């Protein structure tokens, strides 16, 4: 699994961090998404897919 984020689209909803804090974080200065782990382990796959599905700005793409 490979994750691609689009920081320009992000609206700092925090949905991805609530879903998988191990993979996503937010920048201190403006809350925009930061990718901690672009190739997360398999046991986080379901949570990552959930994060992409709830991202309101469609800023998370998951390539399987």
């Amino acid at each position, binding site marked *: 699994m490979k994750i691609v984020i689009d920081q320009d689209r992000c*609206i700092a*909803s925090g949905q991805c961090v609530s879903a998988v804090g191990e993979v996503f974080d937010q920048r201190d200065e403006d*809350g925009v998404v930061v990718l901690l782990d672009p190739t997360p382990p398999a046991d986080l796959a379901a949570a990552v897919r959930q994060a992409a599905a709830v991202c309101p700005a469609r800023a998370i793409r998951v390539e399987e």
Partner: protein
Amino acid sequence: MTETVNPAEVPQFPGARAARCPFDPPPVLHALQEQGPLAKVKVWDGSTPWLVTRYEEQRALLADPRVSADVTRPGYPRSAPVASRNGSAISFILMDDPEHARLRRMVQAPFTVRRIETLRPAVQKIVDGLIDDMLAGPSPVDLVEAFALPVPSLVICELLGVPYADHEFFQDNSKILIRREADPEERAAAFAQLVGYLDDLVGQKLDHPGEDLLSRLAERIKAGELTRPEAARMGVLLLVAGHETTANMIALGTLALLEHPDQLDLLRRTDDPKLIAGAAEELLRYLNITHSGRRRVALEDIEIGGQVIRAGDGLILANDIGNRDPAAFPDPDRLDLRRDARRHVAFGFGVHQCLGQPLARMELQVAYGTLYRRVPTLRLATELERIPFKHDGQVYGVYELPVAW
């Protein structure tokens, strides 16, 4: 619950809830959703915007850049009449990008999930203190006044740098501002009062900055990145959105749980953060207090759900019925705290999705996770029929909730 709609007639929106189902959306919404994802409805001024009733179409349209939240555009379906002297917007919630993004980005930092998490111990202390006071005082008591309203008000005051001592002033004016049936002149006056109040506070922060969000906005004014009226309006938006919403979720959520004792029991007996967090998501979905729908206007022709929305058509995306769409949530009318409700649209969707959601989630988790465990005998001190519901509010809830223990 089952109601039929004559397809030849344009139904009125908003419709009334069924008398004995205060937690369910109006039956007409169920009927329209069954017929299709979109329907024309008639609103207060006689215009006929589209009502979008299904979950998938709501999410698609709310995330579509051809759809505008700009309240000043012709065709925008206002939820109530506006006074002639004041049609101005309450900041970025009613603006499009790039202006929306410019302003929203200035206030995103304090609402990140990790920053909000650092406030949890302070919120726990507030919640425990209010429960201590409640238990030490007379019973019955109005839970709205004693608990549901002070929790988010104290927190948002601290975050913004607004003196809590002024809470009667801003709570009263907020109430008028978000009442659908308030007189337009009265609503405009309440908005002007709040803007004036926030403008004074911003002025004070310009001279004596502190560690709060309004002080950060004052810095932006000094740096020439923001005007003072913009800062005051953002302050109003954050103050109003920051307490009215969560307060209604706490009070209405408590009532819904008292009416579903098996579900309440789950919360009474647990300190599992996962279960409590899941319960908060399910209550957000099930109650969907922002029951006036997200309001938008189409900028271009859009083909969706077998219909063509024309440029200039108004759109009402009824997230309350979206959250009861059986295609998205099996057995949607059941309150089931153990289900996975995270995909709900109670915070909206697209670029306007709730800025305060990490804060709202944390406050609800602490409130729901503490109140029923500490007051296991909590009960309604009146009949359900006597509870005054906010049928006339932009935000649904209860005006009063007499409880005893």
